């Protein structure tokens, strides 16, 4: 088992691989504890909002990875299933008699059922093949449903979407979910439950066969499994959990619009999942947490955050196809050999200058943007807590120098890092 985890830094090309590590109950208990304690550590209401957003994205990203990482199917329209789940939940919320007959925590199940139902219909023709054809069909169907949301006003509510009120449900042990914190615990419960169910799904024969079909459909067929049906089951299950995420979104925000199902949100979930790493079960969780944080922090600081996110995404695809989880797991063998301390110094020498160089580059980008697009006469800009005039030469020189020096040092020390890495990864004494 352990040799599957070994990764070679000169070959970052890891095959997408899921479930190659055995998990015990421990991580789940820890996660449950963390979920319980989080609101006591981050007490502000904005933190609660961010965390709700985060857990919803976690469920959605995990559902997406059931397709991409475990089934090898790339979908460009997966937001549709979450969106339809959300719309269905919203309609149930507005059907007051029916809504009052069950407590609110049950509502996401309906979202899941509707998501899975739509996935059953679409999957019946889209899962015939994987790869490019599947990707194109998912894009076409996604566009079709997103575009018809403006036309079919009865279900999608046109451009303003539909809204509802979550408090009309049957009280749940006297709780009416008036406050954000109540919703937080509801979301936390669902994130834990869905993650556990999705993990268990990946252990079932059908989840295992999904991996086999991803890697070699022909061979899987020779073993007697229909590749198409295996893909179909994964697709429907993924649609179910996406629908749950959509239902939670409806509960949290009490409004669902066309934005929940358009191609842009499908693209975001692909970005989140890939950034986190498709090769490991916990990859999308890391991706969702990091992306939500980066999005909230960066979008407050700069207008160009989508540009940075796009660049980061492209760099991940080109250089670290394993994503963040892949990068983390590369270090497991090093720790197993007990040689982690060999890496500290080279990391410090290379990554710190590289980070400074990249920040310098960002400063150049920001200054160029300010220079071109700021209103006339508004020459002052604030960057890294310093305010200066973007139309003078000095700041440009400083930024250029910082960038060049940082990147040159990083490039100089990179071979030493590579050497230290191969030392740390080889058993026996260091030569």
């Amino acid at each position, binding site marked *: 088992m352990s040799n599957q985890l070994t990764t070679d830094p000169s070959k970052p*090309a890891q*095959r*997408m691989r899921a479930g190659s590590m055995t998990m015990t109950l421990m991580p789940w208990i820890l996660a449950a504890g963390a979920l319980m304690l989080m609101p006591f550590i981050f007490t502000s209401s904005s933190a609660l909002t961010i965390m709700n957003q985060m857990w919803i994205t976690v469920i959605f990203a995990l559902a997406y990875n059931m397709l*991409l990482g475990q089934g*090898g199917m*790339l979908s*460009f329209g997966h937001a549709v299933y979450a969106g339809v789940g959300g719309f269905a939940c919203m309609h149930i919320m507005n059907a007051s008699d029916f809504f009052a007959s069950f407590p609110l925590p049950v509502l996401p199940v309906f979202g899941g059922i509707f998501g899975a139902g739509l996935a059953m219909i679409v999957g019946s*023709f*889209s899962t*015939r*093949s994987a*790869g*490019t*054809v599947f*990707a*194109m*069909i998912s*894009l*076409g*169907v996604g*566009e*079709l449903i997103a*575009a*018809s949301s403006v*036309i*079919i*006003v*009865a*279900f999608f509510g046109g451009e303003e979407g539909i809204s509802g009120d979550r408090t009309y449900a049957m009280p749940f042990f006297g709780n009416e979910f008036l406050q954000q914190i109540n919703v937080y615990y509801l979301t936390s419960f669902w994130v834990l439950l869905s993650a556990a169910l999705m993990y268990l799904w990946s252990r079932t024969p059908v989840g295992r066969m999904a991996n086999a079909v991803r890697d070699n459909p022909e061979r899987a067929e020779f073993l007697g499994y229909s590749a198409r049906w295996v893909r179909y089951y994964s697709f429907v299950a993924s649609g179910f959990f996406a629908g749950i995420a959509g239902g939670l979104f409806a509960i949290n925000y009490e409004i669902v619009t066309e934005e929940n199902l358009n*191609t842009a949100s499908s*693209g975001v979930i*692909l*970005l989140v999942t*890939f950034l986190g790493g498709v090769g490991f079960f916990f990859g999308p969780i890391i991706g969702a947490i990091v992306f939500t944080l980066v999005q909230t922090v960066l979008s407050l600081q700069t207008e*160009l955050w*989508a*540009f940075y996110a*796009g*660049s980061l*995404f*492209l760099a991940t*695809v*080109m250089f670290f*196809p394993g994503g963040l989880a892949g990068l983390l797991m590369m270090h497991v063998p090093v720790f197993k050999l007990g040689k982690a301390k060999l890496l500290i110094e080279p990391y410090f020498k290379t990554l710190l200058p590289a980070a400074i160089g990249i920040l310098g580059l960002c400063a150049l*980008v920001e200054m160029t*943007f300010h220079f*071109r*697009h700021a209103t006339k006469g508004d020459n002052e800009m604030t960057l890294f807590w310093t305010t200066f005039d973007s139309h003078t030469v000095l700041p440009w020189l400083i930024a250029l120098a910082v960038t060049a020096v940082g990147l040159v040092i990083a490039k100089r020390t990179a071979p030493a890092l590579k050497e230290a890495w191969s030392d740390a990864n080889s058993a026996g004494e260091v030569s």
Partner: protein
Amino acid sequence: MELILVNIIDGLVTGLLLFMLSAGLTLIFSMMGVLNFAHASFYMLGAYFAYQISIALGFWMGLLIAPIIVGVLGAGVERYGLRRVHQYGHVPELIFTFGLALLIEELVQFIWGKNQMPFNIPEVLNYTAFSVAGNSIPAYKIFMIFISVGIFMGLLYVLTKTRVGMIIQAALSYPRTVESLGHNVPLIFMGVFGVGTALAGVAGVIAGPVLGTFPGMAFVLGSIVFVTIVIGGLGSLWGALVASLLIGWLTTFAKSYNLAMSDIFNAIGISTPENMDDNIFRDLWTVTSPQIADILPYILMVMILIFRPAGLLGKRES
């Protein structure tokens, strides 16, 4: 009757424009098996470059230079980006081009801002060529038709009659054999990718003044182009032509004839229900054809995928 003629011309313009994009896309697909998600982004880059050049040197130089720059950029993307990602498999390749499309859109917004650029039809072509029953046909549309047909003819000639075309066609089907005959297949791939993106650039230059030069232009056309090559059959050049023209005419005719759904239902013998307000199909009854014109290609695609998965002129999947 006259209106039909006008619509035929309009649909032809849209269809041929679509074809210029889908031709390059389908060539690249049949060659490398990778779908270039950023193809429409190169179309957008063509329009923006041409606008920037036209300020200094005029429209015609823009038409000449912008596609060349776009082609070189495309070749660079193939050489330094796609070829690197290729080792990881097809899915990462698709994700790479998807990321590239996102990045190019952000980049365009970064350089030119979010507003539409004042990229206009050149003065020489800004007149009415002729009019059909009171509807004037601008000369620029005729120019667009001629450019696209000319490019299609040229492409067909190069691909089927010249030595280079023969080698490309051979490299499409048997890259290994062609390589062992002494041809540089990676270079051919890079070249075809460059030419394909340059074609998208040309389409961008000539469409920019009519359809508008704005950061969303790639997205507007992009997904329709994918739909086109799926309908035509992945990898089939003739299929791309047929599907482009079909979509061009379908959307144009749906937009200009105001057909209400209720009329169609009434014609086939279903009467309009009395009480519309609480009928769950009320939207279906009030829909008109201009409303659904933009989603007709997607509906067509789903139909094709259900009844003829290989596309109109595609080969059956092996």
